[in-house]
């Protein structure tokens, strides 16, 4: 028997979390597990606190954790993330799936989070604390905290690249996804891979190489050479870890060169 408890605020809801509890937002991941009776789900917690707003604050954009992929596509402030949102699921999924839920999506899902990782987003929790996204992802599956918002600094025009590689287009899950922030205007280079590990991961060796080179076929060769260093892809029904390692550098190269081979 599964019980569902609804709270007025996220703060109250987070106090009800324990090992056998899951938090329900858009439900695109959780309801599948409920329908398939994945063991360990006994208690579902919801919150009525409205957290769908997307607004600019200073240099950053605040995205409420309950904002859906569709909200992100429709908001002017998040225009730079619209192509990423469009790559998530089909229209029905985008209508329900939330930004907060995507942070917890197991591989190979979580394309949106991959983009947030490359953009150095900050995660805000119900208890008022906040955390860098990389720190958050490293201990994502052990923590019991409710995310209320994400803040992210919009990249300079043309410096953010994203690509999702899937077998079924347009809505198949990712074989891998890549988000790149090119070094410009004081922002450091970031290269994040989705579906290349249990959570989206940064390719730090490649980032370091990218920050001291120019973007052309020859210039990026050292970046490509170390593209998969530090990544930990797994075998799944979509691709083997071997295949993912083989194709990740190729797709990174294509992304950096803007579709040129």
């Amino acid at each position, binding site marked *: *028997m*599964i019980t569902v408890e609804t709270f007025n605020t996220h703060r109250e809801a987070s106090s009800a979390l324990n090992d056998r509890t899951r938090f329900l937002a858009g439900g695109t991941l959780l309801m599948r597990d409920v*329908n*398939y*009776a994945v*063991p360990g789900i006994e208690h579902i917690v919801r919150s009525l606190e409205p957290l769908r707003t997307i607004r600019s604050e200073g240099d950053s954009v605040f995205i409420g954790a309950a904002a859906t992929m569709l909200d992100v596509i429709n908001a002017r402030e998040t225009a730079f993330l619209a192509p990423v949102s469009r790559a998530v699921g089909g229209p029905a999924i985008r209508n329900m799936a939330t930004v907060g839920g995507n942070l917890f999506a197991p591989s190979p899902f979580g394309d949106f989070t991959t983009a947030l990782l490359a953009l150095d987003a900050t995660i805000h929790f119900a208890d008022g604390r906040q955390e860098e996204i990389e720190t958050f992802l490293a201990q994502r599956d052990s923590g019991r905290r409710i995310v209320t918002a994400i803040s992210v600094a919009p990249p300079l025009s043309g410096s953010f690249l994203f690509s999702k590689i899937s077998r079924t287009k347009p809505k198949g899950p990712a074989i891998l996804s890549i988000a790149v922030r090119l070094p410009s205007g004081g922002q450091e280079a970031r290269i994040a891979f989705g579906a290349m590990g249990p959570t989206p991961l940064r390719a730090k060796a490649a980032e370091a190489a990218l920050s001291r080179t120019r973007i052309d076929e020859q210039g990026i060769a050292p970046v490509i050479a170390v593209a998969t260093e530090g990544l930990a892809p797994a075998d799944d029904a979509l691709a083997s870890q071997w295949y993912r390692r083989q194709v990740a550098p190729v797709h990174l190269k294509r992304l950096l060169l803007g579709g040129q081979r």
Partner: protein
Amino acid sequence: MSSVEFRKDIFADERDDDFNEIGKPRIRQDILGHVTGRSRYYDDHLFDGLLHMRCVRSPHHHARIRSVDASAAERMPGVRRIVRPSDVPNNLNTLLSLIGFGRDDEPLIASGKVAYRGEPVLVIIAETEAQARAACNAVRVDWEVLPHVLDVEEAIKPGAPTVNETYPNNTFDYGRFDHQKLRFGDVRKAFREAAHVVEAEYQMSPIEQAPVETCGAIAAPETNDRYLCHTGTQALFFSLGTTAKLLDMPSSKLHFIGGTVGGGFGGKVDSLTEPMAVLGAMLTGRPVKFQWDREEEMQVGAPRGGERWRIRDAVTADGHIIGREFTGFFDSGAYTRLSSYAIQKGTGHLPGPYWIPNVASNIYCVFTNRTPATAMRGFGITGVDFAIECHMDRVAETVGIDPIELRILNSYRDGDMKPHRRLAKNCALVECCQVVAEKAKWPISQEARSASSLAGSSPERASIPDTAVDEEGKIGDRRNREIDPAPAPGTKTVPAGTRQPGEMKDAGPQRPDMMPDAAALGLKRDQASAQRQMPAAAPSARGAPQPVAPAQVRPAAPAAAPPAAAAQPQPSAPAAPPAREPGPAPSTGQPAEVPYQPDKPFQRGVRRPGVSPFLSGSRRR
């Protein structure tokens, strides 16, 4: 409305053009309910106190079951019944046993060992689906993992693990051989005479039918010890017959309701969910639903089987294909299901729509530790057609001929002899190619443009040549030594004109009372005895069209005696099914196999001579 263009100018004199249906747009009979959302699928039928059924499935491709411990599951909330293999009254079946083809090889619930990943070993019935799933997770199975084989050619090597104890050599039996042979002329001679030999291998992966509505059924006790079953099957009476056999009950005790199928395409003929649901209703006395989820549909839902084909063509310098050799492997998965029949269909289809004077083929139905394969649109034909047409292009390239002209050059003409010893008639590939070329603005020569399916046959093309036959690949031989799976050179020659080489006889009926009773069918003459008196082999007059030989009809086969024929007395040659091809393999002179005899006769449901105990009259057409 219709975008189809009818070329009624072609063969205009062969056809009355007064069709009422063909060429006219028709509204699908069930479309109104579908588009208005009113069609009731099996899962739309609601029952009070409905119980839910889930399977504990094998995580291994091949494993012995040392023990199954369901004690924890039994105590879990909501669990109403654990169904074990011993609860299935007749826990071994093969789908085509309903027409007497093949041996029982597949349990409804596996005991002893599993042969594919996802095979059910225990079933749990609980109040809710979640409870049933939770209880399944609590079952502990002690597995002894066995070596498995997933490739068809690995599976027929000596020493490969035996997948299916009923067929210990990992191949279905065709007469005395572990493969289906087709021999026509002498391909070795053709290869010696050929200017080009074109050889290639083609491989098709299994394909899941992926219906929107996953397989399932709801069964409920009815009055008078009957059981009601709502099902999404595409083969309602086939499922009813299979259920009657597995549950060892008369078919009259079963009341199946269906016909509204949420996507089938062949994937819903395997009759796995119906017996399970009815068994659940029998054991609990309550309505029971057994429905696969999406993962089960993908993992254990039987796909179109994988196929591998090797084709070798002997081609003259001017593009005539004078010999074609096939080596084909059908991956049946762990059990037979319908694959044995796909091989027969495939063999009957060779060598494609082309007149080739020398044809040899060996086709294997191979058991591997993969999900059993089953029907999917045109199974047995689609894969080999893909291979043949790819190969035609390859031949065209090798010889340097336009691919459409190569097809026109080699197409069957009316009156040509086919390798399974029937004359080609109503041929139209030449005209199809011409129209395609015209539509695609593809230039073809004047000669190809003026060709016709009506002209071009000859007494030579209409005759059965001297045929080389061999004895390679007898059942079990491959266990002892490696044997090339390709057709072996002939060791004997069957003289030209022999329609049925050797004393190939039809298998008799399984039981004497399965012989159709002419009187009961309303026939004036005992048709069965009339058929048996027909000569087994009659050399053909060259070039003369052959009548359809009723000698091929097996009196026990369900195809015999259609109701239409039964309704009107036919004194002379009754009830020869016109579409039935002969067994395509002329093997050599050996007495026929001992007819298939089940250990236990089927339970009679309807006690009328000649009437299948499982099925109503609708199958008997």
